[in-house]
């Protein structure tokens, strides 16, 4: 594998340092250079899979027993380890992409089930990832996805169960409410940054918990809490306000996927085709230069945090209006707020990359469920794999060192907001 990889990038490097030639050749060179980024991503994935395999082996009871007499008869342990890892990853694949058993069952629903679950899980991750990525581009690190998602879900959920509106209107009203809720929550952090210089990382972390406790409070008061219930669960969202399924009710994928793709398209247009997007990127690249050029840095911060919060709010809508559970609970976030950060980092803060990263992590989430039910491997392994991927991507020189690639520039996550004072 290493030899395949070292070839092209080293050629590229020579072409690159000499300045990219124009025209078709330039495009080709750039494509291969992007390939270099892709290669790093793939290798990071491979490393993460290996780390996951190690965990599976450690957790596997048969392997542990066989390890007890490893020196007496090594094949036993190696065999058990191979069994555990291969059956685990096979189940992960079957749960997220394609299950060969479903062919014999002969129904399209069974064949499409895994893909549908993957896309269902991907939608909120994509939305959350876009939110983080958009803020990244303007030089802000929004780790308040959790809080903004919760704020959005509270608003969308409230409209969804408390209002009484006709079919299409109800869904739209709930979506708008969710977007506003998230935007307000994100906007607070943006406003604080613009007005007082409060670092957005600190304020968004704090706002996460404020939102969480606000949610816990609301789930304990009348009007919000489900009637005749002591549980911290809200009234269920009305059928009118639910996001419709795309491929029939037996497949989980729903309209939140459309929302996510539209949002990605919107982000792409915003960042590459609009004046506002140009301004945001300019502020993100160098706020001092942007200010000198006459752009308002504070208003850019507020705008981007409003937009970022709105996208997170939309992720909240996907959770509450499209999720398996149509009622608000304390776990409405389902760790999407933080997973979205890894999605954005993996997608390198570009809308297209975020969609792909969201689908990958959605697949991991979907597959993990089957992995646990089939082989007993805890779903948390997905969390480990995700964070290891991002850790390796963030440090491309580590990947290059492991696989003995040539040191080149690029391929890493761009360095963003620096210290607390930056």
């Amino acid at each position: 594998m290493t030899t395949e990889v070292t070839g092209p990038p080293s050629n590229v490097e020579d072409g690159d340092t000499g300045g990219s030639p124009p025209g078709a050749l330039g495009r080709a060179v750039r494509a291969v250079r992007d390939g270099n980024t892709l290669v790093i991503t793939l290798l990071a994935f491979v490393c993460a899979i290996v780390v996951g395999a190690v965990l599976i082996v450690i957790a596997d009871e048969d392997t542990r027993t066989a390890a007890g007499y490893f020196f007496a008869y090594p094949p036993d342990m190696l065999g058990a380890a191979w069994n555990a890892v291969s059956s685990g990853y096979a189940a992960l694949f079957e749960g997220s992409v394609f299950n060969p058993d479903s062919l014999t069952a002969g129904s399209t629903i069974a064949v499409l089930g895994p893909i549908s679950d993957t896309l269902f899980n991907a939608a909120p991750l994509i939305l959350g990832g876009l939110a983080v990525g958009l803020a990244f581009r303007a030089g802000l690190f929004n780790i308040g996805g959790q809080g903004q998602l919760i704020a959005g879900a509270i608003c969308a959920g409230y409209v969804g169960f408390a209002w009484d509106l006709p079919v299409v209107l109800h869904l739209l009203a709930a979506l708008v409410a969710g977007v506003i809720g998230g935007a307000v929550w994100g906007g607070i952090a943006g406003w604080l940054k613009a007005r007082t210089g409060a670092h957005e990382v600190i304020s968004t972390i704090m706002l996460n918990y404020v939102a969480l406790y606000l949610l816990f409070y609301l789930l304990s008061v009348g009007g919000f809490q489900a009637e005749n219930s002591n549980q911290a669960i809200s009234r269920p969202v009305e059928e009118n306000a639910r996001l419709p399924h795309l491929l029939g009710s037996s497949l989980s994928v729903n309209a939140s996927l459309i929302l996510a793709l539209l949002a990605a398209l919107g982000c792409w247009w915003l960042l590459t085709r609009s004046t506002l997007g140009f301004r945001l990127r300019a502020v993100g690249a160098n706020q001092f230069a942007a200010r000198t050029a006459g752009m308002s840095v504070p208003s850019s911060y507020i705008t981007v945090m409003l937009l970022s919060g709105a996208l997170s709010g939309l992720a909240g809508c996907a959770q509450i209006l499209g999720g398996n559970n149509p009622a608000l609970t304390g776990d409405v976030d389902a760790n999407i707020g933080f997973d979205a950060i890894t999605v954005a980092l993996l997608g390198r803060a570009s809308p297209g990359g975020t969609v792909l990263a969201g689908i990958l992590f959605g697949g991991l989430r979907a597959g993990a469920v089957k992995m646990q039910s089939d082989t007993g491997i805890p779903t948390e392994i997905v969390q480990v794999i995700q964070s290891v991927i991002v850790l390796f991507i963030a440090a491309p020189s580590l990947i290059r060192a492991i696989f003995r690639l040539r040191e080149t520039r690029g391929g890493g996550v761009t360095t963003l907001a620096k210290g607390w004072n930056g």
Partner: protein
Amino acid sequence: MTTIAPEEELVVIRPVVALGVPLRSRLIAGITVVVAGLVCVLAWGLGANPGSADFSLTAAGDTFAIPDLKLPAAGTAIVLGVIVIALGLFHAVRGFSKRQMRWVLLVVLLLFVIAFLCWASTGSPGNPLNIPGLLQNTLLLATPLILGALAGILCERTGVINVAIEGQFLAGAFAGALGASVAHSLGVGVISGMVAGGLMGALLAVFAIKYVVNQVVLGVVINAFALGITGFGYDALMQSDPSAYNEPGFFAPIRIPVLADIPVIGQLFFNVNIIVYMTYILIIVIDVALFRTRWGLRTRAVGEHPKAADTVGIKVLRTRYRNVIMGGVVAGLGGAFLTIGAIGGFTKDISSGKGFIALAAVIFGKWSPRGAIGAALLFGFADALQSLLSVAGTPVPIPSNFLLMLPYLATLFAVAGLVGRVQAPAADGEPYVKG
């Protein structure tokens, strides 16, 4: 204090001379205090149920019993409120100096809390609020926060942002419970907790210093990693065989003879478990070392101006590695406290955001050990108070979730500059590349 104030030794860019407090900020602070006083008078004083506020001052197991303290609830709160208003008015009109204001705010806070407790204790007449119990709980809840905050200070004073305190807590808590269960020894548990925290610290150090990864991003990712790996370990090992892997037991308190017999505060401070005593030592050691030793001077130099430090021959990267790993070890101890210091068993996400409160304490305490410890105690108190009041009840029910929100809101206000300027070490979060 005849020596130069420690913070001033290294000031490079910050203006040192501040001629009085500007009128605008004086007015804002003064009016805020007056409003707090009005709340005391109108809400806590006039809103109290008739009768007296009863406080029990004897903890279970105290040698000497002190009779319950009975205060006229409404009267006390009103008097305290008037004092607070007077302080606020004085500040708005004449102005306290910066140094005085710190103490004034402390007094205001104390009076406000006492007035609040007077009001709260009238919620269930004949059932006195147990003050020593409340304080004991505060210390119990604040201990991990203090350790986490100290870890944060060790890292950030040396120029590496530590958002990964939460992850270090989780690793320490998990390894503490696992080590103690497997080895049937709490001592092994403490050590394995500290080692696990140190490993998380090392992970942070290597990626932040060697691979120059954005440190906030890194912290978030390490938190996710720790959450995943401890959750995985819990499901894979602990849940399948709790007696072998997750029954560590916990440290019994150690009673220091004479000192523990002091009324009210004796048991609070001197009948606690070993990790709390270790925390006392760490507090003193870190506070003294940071401002009075060569190591401390170097640490702060590296955190404020690494290039200058490098120029005079301080090994910037080595200092950072050492401090970040030490920070991880301290946070790992805090994590171990969560399992073998208090509950005796690991559950998923056991730290549940405490690492972030510790981070908040670092920031709220302006990156100084004393400030951070004060903030950690304050946040611990808010937590202890909400659990007390959710049981005891108040005249008007206060949702406990709002009290739980307080640390985060307080920090939000702090970073927004409402309680003076919050300034991080100048090079905090900036990787140092030689040359």
